[in-house]
């Protein structure tokens, strides 16, 4: 019995074969070209990141009206709040802010808890001030984050632009990529909460220009109360670029970074290079630690 397919006749003309071969030929050429195998996964990963970012952006809740002076906002979900001057503040879950005052020349906001990221519209005529406890951040037109962790830590991170951070009377200007963290000093020491600013440059391209500056405690120096036990927490260690050393507070001890130890001169002749004794500079004692590997002495059984 013949299979049923033999009764089915589907015509295929030569023109169709020519046209399909032309198309297939191009596809075969494309398949033969060396392909970068990482391109497709990379594109897929990028698309996934964009989708996740888009979803995260969509799930941010936006307030309809800008905050009015005196109004406080406690975010029970990630929220973007508008401010009267057109700036925005992005609140993480659980963050709280309060618009203290809003005028043509001053916007003042208090971060009461949690993490708030500010995207500030650049307006030279008005100051934008963010307070977290006794830390004040004054803005020049930027995007930055203020994080208030519990009662004793405030962190400021700059994404774009510049801000001035003031804590304990010390002002520090931070640029994009820099981060500032202040810890409140233990109140049990008898002086109440004080803040020890630790300024950490996340990515400091001027690494070689950095010097350490020890800032004196207020009331420190000649005539200070000597009965008070020395408290290391009150010595602030601030890392500032070398070009700002001139602006360091009076009384600050400037200690440049220690220069690297001198290296022994490079041997010039072949014999010097071969002989470690000759390569060692005269007048310097040789190190006591062995510089070359010497095989251990073979273990021998003690006689008897």
């Amino acid at each position, binding site marked *: 019995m013949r299979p049923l397919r033999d009764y*089915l*006749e*589907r015509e295929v003309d030569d023109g169709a074969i020519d046209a399909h*071969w032309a198309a297939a030929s191009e596809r*075969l050429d494309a398949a033969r070209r060396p392909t970068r195998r990482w391109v497709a996964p990379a594109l897929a990963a990028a698309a996934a990141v964009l989708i996740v970012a888009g979803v995260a952006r969509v799930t941010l809740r936006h307030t309809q009206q800008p905050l009015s002076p005196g109004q406080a906002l406690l975010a029970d979900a990630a929220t973007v709040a508008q401010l009267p001057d057109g700036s925005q503040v992005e609140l993480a879950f659980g963050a709280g802010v309060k618009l203290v005052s809003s005028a043509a020349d001053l916007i003042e906001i208090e971060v009461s808890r949690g993490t708030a990221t500010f995207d500030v519209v650049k307006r030279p005529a008005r100051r934008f001030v963010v307070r977290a406890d006794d830390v004040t951040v004054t803005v020049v037109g930027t995007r930055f984050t203020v994080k208030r962790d519990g009662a004793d830590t405030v962190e400021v991170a700059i994404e774009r632009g510049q801000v001035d951070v003031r804590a304990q009377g010390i002002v520090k200007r931070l640029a994009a990529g820099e981060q500032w963290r202040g810890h409140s000093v233990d109140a049990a020491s008898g002086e109440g909460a004080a803040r020890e600013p630790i300024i950490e440059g996340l990515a400091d391209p001027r690494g070689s220009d950095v010097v350490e500056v020890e800032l004196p405690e207020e009331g420190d120096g000649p005539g200070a109360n000597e009965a008070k036990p020395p408290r290391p927490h009150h010595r602030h260690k601030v890392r500032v670029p070398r070009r700002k050393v001139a602006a360091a507070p009076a009384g600050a001890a400037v200690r440049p970074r220690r220069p690297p130890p001198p290296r022994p001169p490079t041997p010039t002749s072949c014999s010097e290079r071969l002989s470690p004794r000759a390569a060692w500079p005269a007048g310097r004692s040789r190190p006591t630690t062995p510089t070359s590997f010497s095989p251990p002495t073979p273990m021998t059984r003690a006689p008897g």
Partner: protein
Amino acid sequence: MTRPTHLVALPSARRDDVTDAELVVSAAAGQRWASEALFRRHFATAVRLSWRLAPRCDAEDVAQDALVEALTHLKQLSNPAAFVGWLRGIVVRVVRGRLRRRSLLRRLGFGDADEEVDLDAVISPSTPPEASVQIRELYRAMEKLPTEERMVLALTRIEGLTNEEAAQSMGLSLATVKRRLASALAALDVSEGDA
């Protein structure tokens, strides 16, 4: 025994006195004329097979896809003489993929309107009446079957393959093919009973 890796260049891709196996070896070695010869020789076969398995799919498009896939993966073919059977498996896979996509789109409400397949244009005039009736019943029933059962039914009842050959073409076990065929035939009986 060594397999030939190089053949004498042929004057034309349309010569018929070269075997599939020789063409496969040359095409796998990167000779374009051999790829073209294989394509031209088997395109019509692939179109007809695709049409018989799924008349609603664009058979020429399926054939092009299947042949391009075959020609780009010739090195995976361990026995060059088995090109025809290998290509049949690829056509079956491409058709399956298209049928699945169609059924998914239809479930999502994007399916195109079902037109009646014009069997009169393809059933040869010399077909005996009972065979003609059988073909029409099979295609009517296949439209209502799930993709896998429909493919098994088409491969065994229309293509005339044995269950083993159908299993090989679809990459399934013999037991699975038998189960799907039984299910398809049961549905066919039910629909015949309704008619």
